[in-house]
Each structure stands twice: as structure tokens, then as C-alpha cells.
């Protein structure tokens, strides 16, 4: 079975990748200037105090030794304890992951909706002024980074026309009946649409900021592909059957243009997840990205390691999902 073989070989390369990522992160955050001990002790602490604290966290050993100890623990499911919060890294990180996942997926959905709509519209109106307008919009979407979109959105929907929430994940005054961290998902399942509305109102701007550059890429690429496909023989044949231009784009061209776009969307989606780090900070959204920045500022070495590994796992799973979707959508591969 193709899918099974693909999945297994992917899991193997994923493991190798993760070990590589672990080594690099581990070494880099120990080599760069600044150390956690200096953040924990008051100025003027004695050398003996510093040494004692270093020994407590195992930072007096060589980097190789530290890595082996840490890696051995990781194999047992122990990612260490956060230096700043003194809580297990694994539970800290897993607590924040759902928030970031919900935000990223929301952003992806928005990007696909905007991107595909613009691509179809641009193809339908090809050769007219409206297409040039869409091209300009794509150009702007592509050249402005996500955090700048965030600032612009805050100005627009937070200050000038304050309809959305600027800060946080959910209004603090609300009672949350949730048992998991997947707030948005759970609010829908529990039919608490008042909470869904509040969550969406918080999520909308950061999600849109993350989505706009990706939407522009999808729109640009898909339009290009659609414009080629609508001139292929089978599209012409469909027109002679009596189908309208819109129908030809939707049912003949779109299914064949989606595939080449999909691969790129997968790659770009990992960039989007990377973008959550700054955008979450901007909107004080309590996700992994926001936590990552805190961890770096505090030199919370175990936490940084945990977050980076989790991001790496996330990226490889996104790529795997894209490959599997590709195999599923392409009839030639499905039957191979």
C-alpha cells in the first residue's frame, strides 16, 4: 500500500530530522551570550552562589555531557523543567500548543478562502482591468510581512473602527467550562456559541495577519495555473458542450490546478506557523509563539528546546499531511 509505505519512510526521516534539530538548538542556545543563571540571581551574587546554581541545573558540565543527559531523559518522555516557572516543559508546551494550532489552522482557512476566491475571480476576469487589480492586491499581500499586517489591522479594526479584540485569546471576564485547551473547537462542540464568538473576535486579526501573505501566494499561483488550464483541450471541449466560462473554471480547470498549488501551500503553511511567534506576541495571544519569546528572553534553556522540538514536529507533520493529500487527490498516484 502506497500510503503506508510513504508514511513509514516519512516517520523515519522525521526522527532523523528531529535529532538533528535537537542537537543544533541545544548547542546554539548554549553558545550564544547570556545565561539563565545571570537572570535568576540578583546583581552582585557571589561566585560560589553562581557555581552552586550552575551545578543545580547541570550547566557546569560540558555541552556534550549535558546533551546526553537531556536526550536520555527525552527518550523517557521527560523534557526537563522550565527554569522560570519550575514546571515540566512538556506540560507547559502541550498546554499552549492547541492555541497556536487553532490560530494557524484558522489562518490557513482564511488564506485558502481568500486566495482561491481571488484566483477564480482573476481567471474569470482575465485580460480585463479587474485582473490587474487582483495582481496589484497580490503584490501588496506578498510584499508586506505578517507582523506589519498585524499592526495595520490593529490600527484599522482596533483603533479606527474597533470591532475586533486586539489582545489575548479570550475575554478574561468569561467563565470557561473547557476541559481541553482547544477552546474554539470545544466551544463549538459544547454549542456555546457566545464563547465561539468571543474567541473568534480575538483570533480574527492575528489569523488574518498571518493569512494575508499566504492568501496572496495561493491566489497568484492558482490563477497562473488556472489560466493555463482553461486553454487546454478538455476545457475547450467543455465549452463546446455548452458550459459557461465560470463552470469551465470550476469543474474542469480547478481540480487540475489545485495539485501544483497544494505542494507550495504546504511549504508556506510551515512559514505561517513560524510567523505565529511574532504575531502572537503582537496580539498577546497565549500560544506557543508568545511563550517562545518569553523563553528566549529569560534564557529558559529547557523550555526553548521543548518549544523548538515541538515546532519541528509540527512542520514535519504538515509536510506529511500535504504529501498524503497530494497522493489522495491525484488519481494517477492513488492507483499506482
Amino acid at each position: 500500500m502506497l500510503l503506508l509505505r510513504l508514511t513509514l519512510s516519512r516517520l523515519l526521516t522525521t526522527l532523523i530530522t528531529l535529532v538533528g534539530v535537537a542537537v543544533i538548538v541545544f548547542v546554539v542556545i548554549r553558545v550564544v551570550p547570556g545565561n539563565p543563571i545571570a537572570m535568576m540571581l540578583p546583581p552582585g551574587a557571589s561566585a560560589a552562589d553562581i557555581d552552586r546554581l550552575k551545578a543545580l541545573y547541570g550547566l557546569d558540565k560540558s555541552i556534550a555531557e549535558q546533551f546526553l543527559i537531556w536526550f536520555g531523559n527525552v527518550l523517557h518522555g521527560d523534557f526537563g523543567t522550565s527554569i522560570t516557572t519550575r514546571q515540566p516543559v512538556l506540560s507547559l508546551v502541550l498546554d499552549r500548543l492547541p492555541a497556536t494550532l487553532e490560530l494557524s489552522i484558522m489562518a490557513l482557512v482564511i488564506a485558502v478562502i481568500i486566495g482561491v476566491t481571488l484566483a477564480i475571480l482573476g481567471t474569470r476576469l482575465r485580460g480585463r482591468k479587474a485582473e490587474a487589480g487582483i495582481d496589484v492586491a497580490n503584490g501588496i499581500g506578498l510584499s508586506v510581512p505578517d507582523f506589519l499586517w498585524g499592526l495595520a489591522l490593529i490600527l484599522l479594526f482596533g483603533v479606527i473602527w474597533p470591532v475586533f479584540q486586539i489582545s489575548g485569546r479570550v475575554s478574561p471576564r468569561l467563565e470557561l467550562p473547557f476541559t481541553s485547551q482547544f477552546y474554539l473547537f470545544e466551544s463549538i462542540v459544547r454549542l456555546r456559541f457566545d464563547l465561539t464568538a468571543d474567541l473568534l473576535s480575538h483570533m480574527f486579526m492575528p489569523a488574518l495577519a498571518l493569512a494575508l501573505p499566504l492568501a496572496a501566494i495561493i491566489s497568484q499561483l492558482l490563477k497562473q495555473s488556472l489560466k493555463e488550464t482553461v486553454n487546454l483541450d478538455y476545457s475547450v471541449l467543455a465549452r463546446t458542450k455548452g458550459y459557461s466560462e465560470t463552470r469551465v473554471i470550476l469543474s474542469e480547470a480547478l481540480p487540475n490546478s489545485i495539485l501544483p498549488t497544494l505542494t507550495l501551500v504546504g511549504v508556506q503553511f510551515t512559514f505561517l506557523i513560524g510567523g505565529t511567534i511574532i504575531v502572537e506576541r503582537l496580539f498577546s495571544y497565549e500560544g506557543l509563539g508568545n511563550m517562545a519569546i518569553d523563553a528566549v528572553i529569560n534564557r529558559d534553556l529547557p523550555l526553548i528546546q521543548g518549544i523548538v522540538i515541538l515546532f519541528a514536529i509540527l512542520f514535519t507533520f504538515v509536510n506529511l499531511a500535504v504529501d498524503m493529500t497530494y497522493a489522495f487527490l491525484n488519481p494517477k498516484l492513488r492507483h499506482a
Partner: protein
Amino acid sequence: MSGFLEIRGLSARLAGTGQRLLRSVDISLPAGSVRGLVGESGAGKSMIGKAVLGVLPKAVEIVEGEILLDEQDLLKVPPAERRRLIGAKAALIPQDPLTALNPSRRIGPQITDRLVDILGWEKARAASRALEVLVEVSIPEPERVMRLYPHELSGGMRQRILIASAFAAEPKLIVADEPTTALDVTVQKQILKLISQLQARHGTALLFVTHDLGVVSKVCDTLSVLYAGKVVEDTTVQRFFAAPQHPYSQALLAATPRHTDPAASLQPVPQAVIDAAMAEVAADDAAWRPQGGAHG
């Protein structure tokens, strides 16, 4: 006598440069008859087929003339109505079976879609009609084939499917645009025979676009010889092969390979004939004033 398809004084030009592509083309195709459109590459033979089916490239604009399909001028009908008319009364057998089927859709829906979406048939009726035409074009195991994707079938099979699809709605007119050019020589013959048989059985008018005079002699009743978008000879097949009138027709016939005398065949069209034909076209252009005259 008025044909099922009547093209009268059809002129077309390139939108940007204004270059003339079709020069007052007249073509008459009575119901149930077969007309060949022959000429070299760029003579405009495919373009006439595309004009009839309403799929001219955007860069080509029709300047004047009429395309009467079943006594309705397609150029005067609003676009949505025109599409429906063409979908109901005409069909295309395309040139390249490898690119004319949508790779991501199964065979069945690609045959039944017109019947259901355009003609409003019940799905079950359309499916049984699809089976019927697939049997008619000698597709083995038609039920299974309808569930396959195009890449699972050979070129010859796909062309049979496209032919079946063209005949499925019982159109009164079929435009065959070089339907055998992309196929192996052995398959060409079968496909040609198949189109001929189906045409005769269903009484369909057939506009057969080809550069192959051998094909014309086998399939067609009448033919139009095109040069630079102008019909230089409009005659019956018998008369054409016995005594072509126009010098270009004569040269074209002389250029056709013959099994009987390979050495004497493959004569290039003499330069003098080309010059004369071009002069004729130029004289024609000089005398030509587009009706309405709105365009410079």
C-alpha cells in the same frame, strides 16, 4: 438549398494587428452530408470549426458574416443562448485524445455531463445512453471503462470515447478537427472508419477539418480548399480528384503522396502558384470593405 450549417461571408481578423484571418468564407453543409475543410497549416480550416462551435481564441474577432446553425444565426444570439444551442445541436471530435479528456474526472461523467447539465436528462437515462454509445464505438466492458480515469486508457480508446461522447447527444452537426492526426497510423484507419459509419448511421452533418487529402477522399462528399483564410475551391470530392479547378488545389493534389508512384509524389507547391494565390488574396483584400466600417 439551405444547409443545416450555412456560413456566409464570414470574415475574421486578429484583434491587435487587424490581420485578416478569414476572408468572406462561404460554406454550406446540408443535413447528413460530409464536407472536408482542407488547406495547409494556418489556412484557417481549424478556425472555421472553432468559429462554428463558439470557441475562437479571444484574440480573434469576427468582423462580419453569418453562421447559421439550423437557420439561426449564432452570431446574433446572446452568448448564454448560443452556448446552449451549440451544446444541444453540435459537437466536437477533438484532435488530440491525450489532452481532450480531463485527467481528474472519470470517463462516465465526461460523456454524460452534457446530457444532464445542458440537455436536462435524468442521470439514469444519460448513463444508459453513455453505455449505448460506448458499445457503438466498440469499447469493451463499457461499465468498467466509465469508472476509469483517462490515464488508464490508450490513445485509440480515448479517441473512441471522445467520438462516443460527441455522438451521445445525437447532434445534427459534428466538427471533427483533425481527429486522426495524433494517432498511430494503424489506429487512424479504424477511427476514420468508425467516424464514417457513425455519421452515416446517425445522419449527422460532418465538418471534417484535415490536411490529409487521402482522408477526404475516403470520408467526404464535398470539400472546401482554403488558402490564407479564403475558400479557393468549393467542389465535390469526385470532381476535385478528377479535375481540380484552382491552381492551388492542383498543386495540393500533386503534393499528396501516392503508393502507386512514390517517386512522382511529394511535389512541393510551386512558388508561382503561391505567388498567384497571394496576389488573388491581396486583390481580394483591396476590394474588401468591412460592413459597418466601425473598425479602422
